[in-house]
């Protein structure tokens, strides 16, 4: 695949060019981590559809363009412009990133309780890189994929959240990632969220665009949970219709920790989100819910890799998809139960609603089990709206379009319920309504 080699070379040069300007280059551990990642990236190159994990997802749309990393934004938005993007009314802190760079002027960090460190990863790496050494790169092993390696090679800015032992945040931390032109922009945000033993927090990640410039986001979030820590992690990808987006979330869980995530993907031309969860100590549990909406020309891809390495952990994954127009959705959910991870309870569900003739769903749940005393299951469905349900609503005087919209909303709400941030749920519901109204909600094939 010569066409694939060329972008690798392009990125290699880019890494070489920006390397001197990256923060923390005097910290040996970080420099060697970046070097390893670069080496791995160059050796591995970009995946092709021959790679099992990329079987249904072509990278053509991502690699066809040259993306300028961390480009200076053409305009500096004012605080008022940003307000529309805020989701959590009761956020205790906000960090705003434009084209991958943290803008302190737009961020608000006042009033954080003691025991909470929150700010830009860039400045943390410049001021006290050794502080981050025990965590950065721990959950996201660079060997995992090309995009993880690329992100690691380019570690520059992102959010840095550290919550001390036993500290509980009163409200969500909101992280807003915006992209804007001119030109084709690339952002490689790198986030590190560390919750020490018994800490509790809610983190909202929101990816959006200020204009309809084509951009490429390759975000990576590492989450490390200490014993008994609890994190609610809500993520919304709502970028412009020309955006390409890939995000990797790596979670490492300690004893009795709880990770609850809601991941929603509505925007972008091409988007892929991956969750890699490792329950490394007993009694840990995770719940990941997700919703994806794909309309005309959109491709959305979700990959889950849930690893039960030790006994007595629980995981629940539930993803729902709504397909409109010529939308395409890919779902790949893997649960892996290692040898001796007895008493594992793992369940995964994926339901897809196809509302158009030309949509396509490729779903692939997987169970890999090497222990016997387990309860594991997965279920997948693909279908359209039930005619009986439509009839029920219509017989009560509700118009066909409204009835369909109501049913779609109900379908999505099951997933959104898992999120405790009201503003987040409300935003997704609004976006869903808009998408359903815009993309003609097609009826049953019989009509």
């Amino acid at each position, binding site marked *: 695949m010569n066409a694939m080699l060329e972008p690798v070379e392009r990125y290699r040069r880019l890494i070489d060019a920006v390397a001197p300007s990256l923060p923390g280059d005097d910290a040996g551990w970080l420099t060697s981590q970046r070097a390893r990642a670069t080496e791995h990236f160059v050796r591995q190159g970009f995946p092709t559809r021959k790679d099992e994990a990329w079987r249904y997802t072509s990278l053509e749309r991502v690699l066809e363009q040259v993306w300028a990393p961390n480009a200076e934004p053409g305009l500096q938005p004012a605080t008022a412009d940003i307000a529309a993007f805020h989701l959590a009314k009761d956020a205790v802190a906000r960090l705003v990133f434009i084209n991958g760079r943290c803008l302190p002027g737009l961020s608000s960090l006042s009033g954080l309780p003691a025991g909470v460190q929150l700010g830009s990863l860039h400045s943390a790496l410049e001021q006290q890189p050794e502080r981050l050494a025990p965590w950065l790169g721990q959950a996201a092993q660079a060997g995992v994929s090309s995009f993880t390696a690329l992100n690691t090679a380019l570690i520059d800015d992102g959010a840095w959240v550290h919550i001390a032992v036993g500290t509980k945040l009163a409200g969500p931390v909101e992280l807003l990632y915006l992209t804007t032109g001119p030109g084709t922009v690339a952002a490689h945000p790198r986030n590190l969220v560390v919750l020490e033993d018994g800490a509790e927090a809610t983190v909202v990640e929101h990816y959006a665009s200020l204009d309809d410039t084509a951009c490429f986001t390759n975000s990576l979030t590492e989450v490390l949970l200490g014993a008994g820590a609890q994190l609610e992690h809500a993520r919304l990808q709502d970028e412009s219709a020309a955006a390409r987006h890939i995000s990797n979330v790596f979670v490492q869980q300690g004893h009795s920790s709880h990770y609850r995530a809601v991941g929603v993907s509505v925007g972008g031309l091409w988007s892929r989100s991956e969750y890699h969860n490792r329950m490394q100590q007993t009694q840990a549990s995770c719940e990941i819910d997700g919703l994806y909406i794909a309309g005309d020309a959109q491709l959305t891809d979700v990959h889950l890799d849930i690893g039960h390495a030790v006994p007595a952990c629980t995981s629940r994954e539930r993803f729902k998809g709504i397909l409109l127009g010529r939308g395409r959705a890919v779902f790949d959910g893997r649960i892996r139960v290692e040898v001796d991870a007895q008493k594992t309870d793992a369940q995964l569900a994926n339901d897809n609603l196809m509302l158009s003739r030309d949509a396509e769903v490729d779903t692939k749940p997987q169970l890999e089990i090497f222990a*016997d005393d387990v309860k594991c299951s997965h*279920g997948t469905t693909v279908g359209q709206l039930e005619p009986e349900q439509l009839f029920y609503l219509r017989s009560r005087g509700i118009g066909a379009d409204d009835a369909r919209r109501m049913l779609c909303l109900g379908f999505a709400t099951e997933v959104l319920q898992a999120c405790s941030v009201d503003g987040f749920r409300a935003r997704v519901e609004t976006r869903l309504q808009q998408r359903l109204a815009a993309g003609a909600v097609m009826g049953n094939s019989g009509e």
Partner: protein
Amino acid sequence: MSAEKQGVKELIRREYQQGFVTDIQTDTLPPGLDEGVVRAISAKKQEPDWMLDWRLAAFRHWSEQTEPEWASVHHAPIDYQSISYYAAPSARPGPASLDEVDPKLLETYAKLGIPLEEQKALAGVAVDAVFDSVSVATTFKKKLAEAGVIFCAISEAVREHPELVKQYLGSVVSYRDNFFASLNAAVFSDGTFVYVPKGVRCPMELSTYFRINSANTGQFERTLIIAEEGSHVSYLEGCTAPMRDENQLHAAVVELVALDDARIKYSTVQNWYPGDEQGRGGIYNFVTKRGDCRGARSHISWTQVETGSAITWKYPSCILRGDGAVGEFYSVAVTKGRQQADTGTKMIHIGRNTRSTIVSKGISAGHGSNAYRGLVRITPKAENARNHTQCDSLLIGDRSAAHTFPYIEVRNPSAKMEHEATTSKIGDDQLFYCRSRGLSEEDAVSMIVNGFCKEVFKELPMEFAAEAQKLLSVSLEGAVG
């Protein structure tokens, strides 16, 4: 161009004639695989030129391929040049009497309640000409001929019914299909051919077991079943008793063709030598099975009980081409000791109103590893397609493994597709319930496992189902506790 081709062909043929003379004397080809071997096999079978050409094309394609590695199985690399690709049945030395047969094998026969004469046949002991099943088979043949059903060895069909073989052979599983299918096409030595004419309901269950000279069908078996419009046929392959077999590598190909309103039911019980406790020896069973529901309302149903072989690697599939076609797959796969199974199915929905059902039950005991791998594809034109998939795995022992890898591709909104998979061990409460009623642990497990597999067993022809149940209990003996 064509003249040149002709010249080359002649040259090759001459070369082969020389090889042929030496080979026929030994009746067993020396290990190794090249064009000469393919030619020799074809010559021994007295095949026409078109057949040889097809084999050679397959061989050339095979030579360019590498062995696939994606299956969830592990084995030492196979040396394809160390295998002998043809041995005439008579050339195989068998034990002279049952006394020479492995007592363990005999013990299993006794448990399965197999009559003495049949035990001899299965163990490869030379049997008398008056042996019952031979005469039974002759009676069967007469009855089938009256109905117009052709049921014979595929090499015989190549000679006697070339027009049918030419039309259908390779039309479902092309020689380019996959590595093992190419290998099979190049070197297959024998197999079964069934042709059921229009509107005929085959008067009996067909079984390889009753086909004369079928005892040694060889390691590269090729089966072709054609069901003409409105016909019905049920075919049984294998048997519950462990077969004595020296071949380590088996790469069979099965092709089914169902025309309008035809119905084919294909049942397999596979119980080949699984190797010893350490996983030494044992059969590698790499099979390509595919049914083509070509006609409207055609129906193909696969039922398999897989308990043997060190490695089982097969995916009996259905291409649902005709409108209203139905595909079914019912499977029980048991792995114990060091056995590995990677099995499942593909259901390709092309026609309108096509339906498919998949029920897969995997049981892993000891160090056994079991994987379900399946594909359900609903193409844009498959209006109102329906699929239901249920994959359950049962784990017995903390070193066993069970995997599920379903692929689901839907491109039509009117499709209704459901996939469900579960993995668990036998519930302690279930065991306790049975044991508190006086059942031994082994009996309790056997009962629960049989219940777990019931959905599949009920699809087997009746006598077979009873045998399969017994087989399952025997297979799991010693796996518990």
